[in-house]
């Protein structure tokens, strides 16, 4: 589903440049539940941005759903994002003047789906995250956990190939964090590829595979031994 070969990325800083990703190789298959672990500055967010087509890479190869990503202009990237990727952000990134339902329906708007159809689909996904009764609420009328569930519903609404979550629990307390992770697990069980970025060990522990990143290189890549937590 996601295949990365010898990926390099550096950012210009002043006159020099900061080499953030130093030749990553990573292969994520369909249906996997993967977490990228690393402290801040390890390059994990940069990786997610490149995988999420929010940013470009310098050298190396990136295949998304078997398609080589190169020379992407903004328009093509936007269409691919809309079609293949669902995003969940740490700070939720809901549009504050739109209701929960409208937020969830927004990606469908950019697919050119009519309003009625859009709202119908969006309501189904809100129901899936257990927020059907909150459909007409504005983001500031929702709790942090509810906001993130709305964001997850929004990520799923286009039925993407991969859900990319950037510190999805970073702004949540531990109980809510757990609920959000349960939701992501459930989505994964239904066959969705889920790609989580986190710096919290216990969050990473809830995924199936942990990739550790340090100073722009992968230092470990291991399956998690499923242990039942209470």
């Amino acid at each position, binding site marked *: 589903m996601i295949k990365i070969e010898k990926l390099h990325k550096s950012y210009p800083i002043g006159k020099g440049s900061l080499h953030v990703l130093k030749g990553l190789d990573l292969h994520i298959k369909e249906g996997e539940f993967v977490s990228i672990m690393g402290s801040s500055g390890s390059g994990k967010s940069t990786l997610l941005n490149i995988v*999420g087509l*929010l940013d470009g890479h310098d050298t190396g190869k990136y295949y998304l759903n078997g398609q080589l990503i190169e020379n992407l202009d*903004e328009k093509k990237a*936007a269409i691919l994002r*809309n*079609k293949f990727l669902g995003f969940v952000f740490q700070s939720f990134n809901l549009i504050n*003047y*739109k209701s929960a339902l409208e937020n969830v329906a927004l990606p469908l*708007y950019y697919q050119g789906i009519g309003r009625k159809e859009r709202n119908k689909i969006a309501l189904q996904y809100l129901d899936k995250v257990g927020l059907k009764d909150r459909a007409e609420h504005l983001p500031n009328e929702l709790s942090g956990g509810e906001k993130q569930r709305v964001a997850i519903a929004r990520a799923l609404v286009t039925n993407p190939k991969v859900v990319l979550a950037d510190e999805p629990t970073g702004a949540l307390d531990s109980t809510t964090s757990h609920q959000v992770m349960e939701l992501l697990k459930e989505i994964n069980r239904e066959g969705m590829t889920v790609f989580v970025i986190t710096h919290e060990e216990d969050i990473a522990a809830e995924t199936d595979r942990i990739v550790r990143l340090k100073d722009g290189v992968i230092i470990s890549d291991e399956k998690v031994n499923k242990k039942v937590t209470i």
Partner: protein
Amino acid sequence: MFDLDRWQEIFQTVRKNKLRTALSGFTIAFAILLFTLLFGIGNGLKHTFEKQFAGDSQNSIYIRSGNTTKPYKGLQSGRKIQFRNDDSKFINKEFEDKIQFFSPNIERFAQASYKGEQNQYTVRGVYPDYLPLESAVIETGRFLSVLDIKKKGKVIAIGRLVEKDLFGNKSALGKNIVLDGLSYRVVGVFSDPGGDNDERFIYAPFTTLQGIYKPNDELDRFGLTFNPKLSIAEAIAFSNQLTQVLKEKHKVDPRDQSAIRVQNYAEGAKNVQQFMGVLNVIILFIGIGTLVAGVIGISNIMVYIVKERTKELGIRKALGATPSNIIGMIMMESIFITALAGYTGLLIGVFALKALGDSLEKYFILNPSVETYVVVGATIVLIIAGTIAGYIPAKRAARIKPIVALNDE
């Protein structure tokens, strides 16, 4: 192409972001309102000046005679110059192609009475051409006709105020007024934009008055309008030439200023035109200034709006909005607000001017109003400016990488 869904998206952002909408809308509406008001008041000033000079036809020339002040060709000074009918014929023949209307003129101050009501009025013996010369308009009945001239008819056309003085609120038409002991039938009542004085005149056929008051074929003065096709310079040249040939004919020293006096409104018109020209430039300047201020205002606000929305635009991009989606959305919003607010400002301005009406007449502002095409044009200019002002930041916003936009706080 009308895309209902897109419009709904825009209506929602407009509705849900009231402060932003109000801010930009207010700037536009205010600019158009100011523009309309300033332009309207400028036009009001113009109207006042136009009215000041509306008393007589703008292209009229009056010729009077007096006594010579210089001896010339063996003739003494102090000699009275008397116009006669052959001068009429002479002028008409010499300047046929340069004259539009022409009438010799006899003027008498006469006692007028009707059934006990009496008053003194200036009675003028004129030809039918005299009516347009004075810019007078017949209200009821008719003016003097060629037949009246031929038959030396005892008929008169009276000013609106003469009718009011002698007849009160009743119609004077068909009634007989006695002037210096002779009875004349009223055939018409006229009004004259020149004011009260001009509306207290009585016009009788030239031939009738000449027969009664003048020995031989003497007359008092000439009134004529020059061909409106003449430019002002040509008209002034024409009146100079007219003066010259008349002086020659009556053996008057060319430098004698009082024996034959030609009063040409074209000279006044020239000044008025120049003044109006300056006034027009001032009004135009104010108008353009207001528009520029409005354009700058809307540009600022669009930059601010796009800046404020950077994060939202980043979210939209992450969710699959293409750059053209983003640009289209911002521009449509910008155009929508500008058009709506511009139209509102225009309406308020026009109604305000209507309400002002003639209430500012004592400040020389008469009927302040604006031509529709001017305000509509101004509104279109602002809409175009709003579009461009929206396009530039929208384009920039669309180019920002979504990741940068998302991190914007």
